[in-house]
């Protein structure tokens, strides 16, 4: 394993690792991409050539050490190469969320003082041209896909392939340049700047060094025993730290192959074709996979449904124990074996998860039912607790000790401690250098002795596993002093397949109430089977039958809460189903789909008032923003319902 350690001096930056991999694993696949329906493969030696050409081309364009270069687009090998190419010149790549609207981009380009941009296609170029006059620093834009770009004749636009051609010519003229530039890189240099998605306020630029990313990535490889034979699919935004680790840093450390899907709509099919062995997905992906499975099962023949439900019962009873290596009765083992042939293995195959050795989930809490479903199928799904400021890994669930409610034990070289007021702090080699141009925020987050405040409330349980309750600033109190943890309640609601998103209110209020977003796919299918006609989300969300359906979910949550003495006071008394889906384009969610509570509270103030008055319905008008930036208003009359509460309210009434 010492050969992999970056501190050897040879492997302490991405470009050095690249050259090393091109030597050690010249013909091993490094990247795959599906184009025109066919998987194209590049070996490590090939990508080293491509990156060298691009780096020299960028040098010829004028990229200097320290320059910020924004990289934006869907997951494409060419964009991953761009990261390394920029790094080999001593520049700092800044990946940007590809679905950001122009104003969001403008903020980042402006704040990062980006001089160059390497983008995927016309769509991204158009966004930049729109804001070009507001970002005078931007000198050149390199685009990869020439489609639709024929009439763009601005001198500052360059085709990726042309830049590479210039690079080859430059390389021929100055053959020593590339290697000496790579040699100058050091582990302590800033190697990437990632903008946090910004649940609160403006996004902050997190500066990470090669050491941060590579030591953390390498520790992750050691902990899970990742080898050069792993296969992964890179489909999560490149601007997200997780993708940087899983699809870039760890691939460079272990030398495995990263595949890019054909388009963001084909991920499910591409997943099946690639059959990843190392897989990461946020809970919503696992949820939507499970929802699709359940919808299709409900449409299947009765005999198949019975078989599925019977064996899923068996799996639920013993599957987790078998995966964890606990003793299981022979009869159950036999049944599980039959179930594996008939149900589990074909199901995993359909989902493209047959070969997964290590599956991660993070970002949000995953529903215990969903988590148990996948684990009982024999899929080694594990939760981890991660943050951009830590270069991902803080805690990981260890094999064999996976508890749906915990976030696992600290990763290698990571120290975790809990402050007196319950906030989780950590210290690790992955701790970020600083927030770019924001010393105050850096000082607030990073203590003088190197501990980082996560802003999450949590505790260590008896087995040394970390448990996260909520964002500490979100945890509030009802007027009567009852603890109110909004995310905890929202997650409980979201674990129902019919509920896609939930927002709860209660801080400084008399009782807890909730906004619900139904899951259009799941509820739509449910409605179709009951011959309920609907024209779209708004119509469906307002139907009485749907309210009845959601009512059962809310009351079930209340039942669960009533069982817990501390939480029984925070049962949901009133709720409504929102007339529109919460959307990042409307500023209601972050780009990683986390709630932005303040904008939501401001925007729907009327509805919140209605929840805390006796009203049974409330007329609303909402602005929606389409993808192309046009806005429209939706009018609806939102119904408000009371939910039955248990226990606590009974006691209160006495």
């Amino acid at each position, binding site marked *: 394993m010492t050969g992999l350690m970056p501190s050897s001096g040879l492997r302490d930056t991405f470009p050095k690792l690249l050259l090393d991999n091109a030597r050690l694993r010249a013909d091993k696949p490094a990247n795959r991409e599906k184009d*025109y*329906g*066919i998987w194209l493969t590049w070996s490590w030696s090939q990508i080293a050539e491509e990156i060298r050409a691009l780096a020299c081309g960028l040098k010829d364009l004028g990229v200097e050490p320290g320059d910020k270069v924004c990289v934006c687009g869907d997951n494409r090998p060419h964009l991953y190469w761009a990261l390394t190419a920029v790094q080999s010149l001593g520049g700092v790549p800044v990946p940007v969320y590809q679905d950001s609207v122009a104003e969001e981009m403008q903020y980042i380009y402006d704040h990062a003082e980006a001089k160059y941009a390497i983008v995927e296609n016309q769509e991204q170029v158009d966004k930049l041209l729109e804001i070009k006059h507001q970002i005078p620093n931007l000198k050149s834009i390199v685009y990869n896909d020439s489609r*639709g770009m024929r*009439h763009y004749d601005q001198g500052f636009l360059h085709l990726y392939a042309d830049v590479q051609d210039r690079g080859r010519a430059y390389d021929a003229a100055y053959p020593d340049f590339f290697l000496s530039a790579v040699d100058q890189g050091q582990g302590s240099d800033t190697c990437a700047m990632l903008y946090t998605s910004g649940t609160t306020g403006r996004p902050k630029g997190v500066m990470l060094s090669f050491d941060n990313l590579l030591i953390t990535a390498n520790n992750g490889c050691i902990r899970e025993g990742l080898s050069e034979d792993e296969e992964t699919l890179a489909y999560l935004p490149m601007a997200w730290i997780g993708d940087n680790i899983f699809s870039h840093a760890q691939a460079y450390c272990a030398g495995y192959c990263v595949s890019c899907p054909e*388009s963001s*709509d*084909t991920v499910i099919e591409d997943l099946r074709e690639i059959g990843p062995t190392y897989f990461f997905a946020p809970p919503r992906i696992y949820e939507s996979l499970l929802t699709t499975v359940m919808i299709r099962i409900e449409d299947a023949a009765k005999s198949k449904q019975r078989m599925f439900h019977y064996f899923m019962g068996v799996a639920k009873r013993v599957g987790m124990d078998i995966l964890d290596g606990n003793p299981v009765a022979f009869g159950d083992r036999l049944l599980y074996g039959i179930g594996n042939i008939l149900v589990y293995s074909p199901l995993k195959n359909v989902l493209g998860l047959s070969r997964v050795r290590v599956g991660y989930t993070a970002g949000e809490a995953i529903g215990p039912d969903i988590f148990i479903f996948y684990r009982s199928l024999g899929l080694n799904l594990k939760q981890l607790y991660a943050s951009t400021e830590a270069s991902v890994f803080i805690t990981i669930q260890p094999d064999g000790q996976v508890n749906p409610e915990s976030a696992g034990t600290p990763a290698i070289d990571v120290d975790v401690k809990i402050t007196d007021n319950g906030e989780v702090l950590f210290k690790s080699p992955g701790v970020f250098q600083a927030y770019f141009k924001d010393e105050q925020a850096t000082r607030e987050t990073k203590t003088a002795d190197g501990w980082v405040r996560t802003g999450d409330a949590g505790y260590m349980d008896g087995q040394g596993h970390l448990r996260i309750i909520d964002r500490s600033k979100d945890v509030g109190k009802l007027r009567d002093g009852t603890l109110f943890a909004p995310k905890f309640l929202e997650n409980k609601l979201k674990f129902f397949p019919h509920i896609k998103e939930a927002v709860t209110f209660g801080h400084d209020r008399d009782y807890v109430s909730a906004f619900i977003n139904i899951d259009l796919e799941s509820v739509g299918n449910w409605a179709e089977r009951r011959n309920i006609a609907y024209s779209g989300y708004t119509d469906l969300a307002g139907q009485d039958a749907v309210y009845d359906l959601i009512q059962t979910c809310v009351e079930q949550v209340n039942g669960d809460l009533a069982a817990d003495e501390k939480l029984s006071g925070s049962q949901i008394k009133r709720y409504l189903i929102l007339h529109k889906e919460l959307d990042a384009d409307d500023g209601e969610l972050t780009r990683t789909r986390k709630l932005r509570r303040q904008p939501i509270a401001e925007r729907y103030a009327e509805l919140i008032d209605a929840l805390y008055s006796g009203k049974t319905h409330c007329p609303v008008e909402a602005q929606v923003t389409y993808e192309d930036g046009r806005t429209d208003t939706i009018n609806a009359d939102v119904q408000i319902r009371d939910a039955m509460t248990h226990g606590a309210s009974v006691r209160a009434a006495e």
Partner: protein
Amino acid sequence: MSEQNRSPDILLNVEGISLSFGGVKALNNISFDVRKGEIRAIIGPNGAGKSSMLNCINGFYHPQEGQITFKGETRKQMQPHKAAEQGIARTFQNIALFKGMSTLDNIMTGRNLKMKTNFLWQALHLGPARREEMQHREAAERVIDFLEIEQIRKTPVGRLPYGLQKRVELGRALAAEPDLLLLDEPMAGMNHEEKEDMCRYILDVNDQLGTTIVLIEHDMSVVMDISDRVVVLDYGKLLADGTPDVVRANQDVINAYLGVTHE
């Protein structure tokens, strides 16, 4: 560029076309031309004879009078498959796809006229037939990439939403690599966003593949935005012909669309 009056190149010339079904005059002495590389719209109220005009152009209807010249060749009687061989492809007002077949297979049918090997070779899937299929599959994949329908490559088209089916139909027409593309209400029944997508694809086809397009459309804003010249028909008669601005200002057109005020 031979003579002064030959440029801009005329791809299709329609001269004095009259078509009647029994006593009904569907088209009455219609003449217009389509220049190479332009987007030409045909508009008009219901029953104006727009679809009949397209049907004449691709040889499905045989007008009693008049003549059609395509690529400098004047035709007498023509069958649709002959028109297709000459480089005319079309889509239909009501989608006419093979519902049980996948998107890819539907698009491959658009390559049918370009396949040279015979049925037996294809059935055996040997030698030349195999090479040919690979070559056509590549062409089909280019169309799929162009229209961004990778995710439905293997989905039976009957299961697709309406807007996507329209796109697949466009794909099948494109697979034939036509010189002239006839689109019969490509945006009918679509929502605003789908229309915008479709407009973009039509413009892309015109711009990047250099295909000349004749389209029938009811949505005026679409027509005025994307077409270079517009023909207006009303009850089988030619009402106006010119650039969108000219047509928009034409009093006859305004009367036909908005009605006439009676003093």
